[in-house]
């Protein structure tokens, strides 16, 4: 089976070009000396220098990282246990649990944003870090559960049975067998959740308050108020950081489930 039709290969190359060209252009323009427009006026690092000096961007970056760390950490703490707890349910229950669990990942983000905004405003919750972290956990938690469950299902139950037959308590089995076997999936889920949280704009946009500006919110307001080349540099940095995170997470997941593209597309 080695007759790949040429037209398919050409098509695939074009699609790859379509996926990567905009990102390449963006990174290229971030080194452009021109202050206005896209005409090439020579190579410069000055936008990156300006970026490093910008106090507001620095602050937004710190906010984003803190929010991503906290929401991912909490999602991992709750999600791993939940995934293990859910694995014992019956097959029919399991499919329903799955359907419901992925809903927060499926419904358009804007719905989540407005729904949470209304709850917070009606309950007079102060909008800020707390509400953003809650908002991010609503998608980070199901994300963690889905990824960890995918790994759990592929574990050989014999490992745990063996431990039990040797007299291990449920606590021993959990901490010395199950969790170590899940480690790659936990790392993978954590990195993915961290990236998603770091990149989230829509939910954050609705539940953020004054003083809790995250990096995507900052980028958005920069795009809206005027195009300076500084945005290109900032965008380029964000692209590269996301790529590193995803590459690492992908690598970890591949190591844990070598034969499947399935666990990764949700």
């Amino acid at each position: 089976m080695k007759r790949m039709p040429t037209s398919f290969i050409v098509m695939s190359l074009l699609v790859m070009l379509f996926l990567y060209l905009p990102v390449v252009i963006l990174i290229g323009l971030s080194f452009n000396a021109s202050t206005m427009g896209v005409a090439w006026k020579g190579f410069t690092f000055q936008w990156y220098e300006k970026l490093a000096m910008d106090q507001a961007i620095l602050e937004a970056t710190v906010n984003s990282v803190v929010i991503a760390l906290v929401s991912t950490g909490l999602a991992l703490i709750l999600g791993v246990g939940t995934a293990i707890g859910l694995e014992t349910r019956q097959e029919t229950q399991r499919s329903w649990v799955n359907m419901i669990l992925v809903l927060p990942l499926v419904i358009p983000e804007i719905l989540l944003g407005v729904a949470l905004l209304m709850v917070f405003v009606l309950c007079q919750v102060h909008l800020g870090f707390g509400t953003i972290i809650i908002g991010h956990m609503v998608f980070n938690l199901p994300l963690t559960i889905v990824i960890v469950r995918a790994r759990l299902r592929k574990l050989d139950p014999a490992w745990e049975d063996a431990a039990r037959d040797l007299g291990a308590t449920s606590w021993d089995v959990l901490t010395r067998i199950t969790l170590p076997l899940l480690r790659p999936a936990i790392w993978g889920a954590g990195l993915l959740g961290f990236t998603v949280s770091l990149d989230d704009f829509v939910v954050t946009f609705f539940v953020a308050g004054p003083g809790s500006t995250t990096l995507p919110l900052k980028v958005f307001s920069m795009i809206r108020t005027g195009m300076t080349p500084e945005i290109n540099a900032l965008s380029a940095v964000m692209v590269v950081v996301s790529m590193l995170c995803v590459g690492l997470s992908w690598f970890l997941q591949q190591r844990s489930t070598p034969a499947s593209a399935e666990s990764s597309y949700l």
Partner: protein
Amino acid sequence: MVGTGGNGLARPSCTMLNNLSDTSSAFPVKLSLVSASLFLGLFFFLPLILVFGVSLASRGLYGGITWIATWENYQRVFDPLVGVIFFRSLFLAGLTTFICAVVGFPLAYCLARASRHWQLILLTLVMIPFWTNFLVRTYAWVLILRADGILNSLLIRLGLLDEPLSLLFTDLSVFVGLVYGYLPFMVLPLVVAIERISPQLEDAAFDLYASMGGMFRHVLLPLSIPGFLAGGVLVFIPSLGAFITPYLLGGGQNMMLGTFIQQEFLVARDWPFGSALSFGLMGTVLLLWFLLGRTSVEKDPS
């Protein structure tokens, strides 16, 4: 299960029935199961129910909510001006889904039939832009499409154009942005579906003198339908509710449901009407998900 305590000898039959009963009865597992359910109930399901509740209320004098029950918000959804936005969203989401399927299939086929080594590399390449900041990727299209952007400058330099085309803030630019944003959602389920089709079936078709096109039409496409369905749902739903793409690439005149909802909530401050719109969008999405979405999640024989 009974007897999940210490004694390990009496339990082989139990573990046969329910092989994880031990770990799942551990206290931290139960605790996180309960708190995760509470969390999602409180901050996911409750808010969605609230959207429905508010959609039946009236708008207050200064933009608040007055709890007087009314169908008025839903009647306004059928206003022709709202209808235009609704149909533009449906049309753009449908077109995006179709083009993603057409464009994504060849790539998915190459991915599914590549050697393990190449498959891993290509899959990673498809995934990377997908997890790169959506805002930034959409902004890249602003740089390409705007009047003094890359594309116009290039076409003028090549002498193909005398003056720049207005490409940005059109339905076309929104469509390009949507395809760009959600194409990987189509490719990945298609890869999974095609991988499950035995290459021997393709060989069999050729042995029976099928042409390339014939094999494609009668073997490959029909067997890939689960992938098209799963990918279709995963592209259509976020396209229908997209916010960033129509906001940055569509501007004020080319609103979609997402931008319209945002405007009702944050600009017009008409929460009940915004909620009715949201609930309409949510109803459409949930219907699609429960009808077709199952294929994408639960078909996991491996």
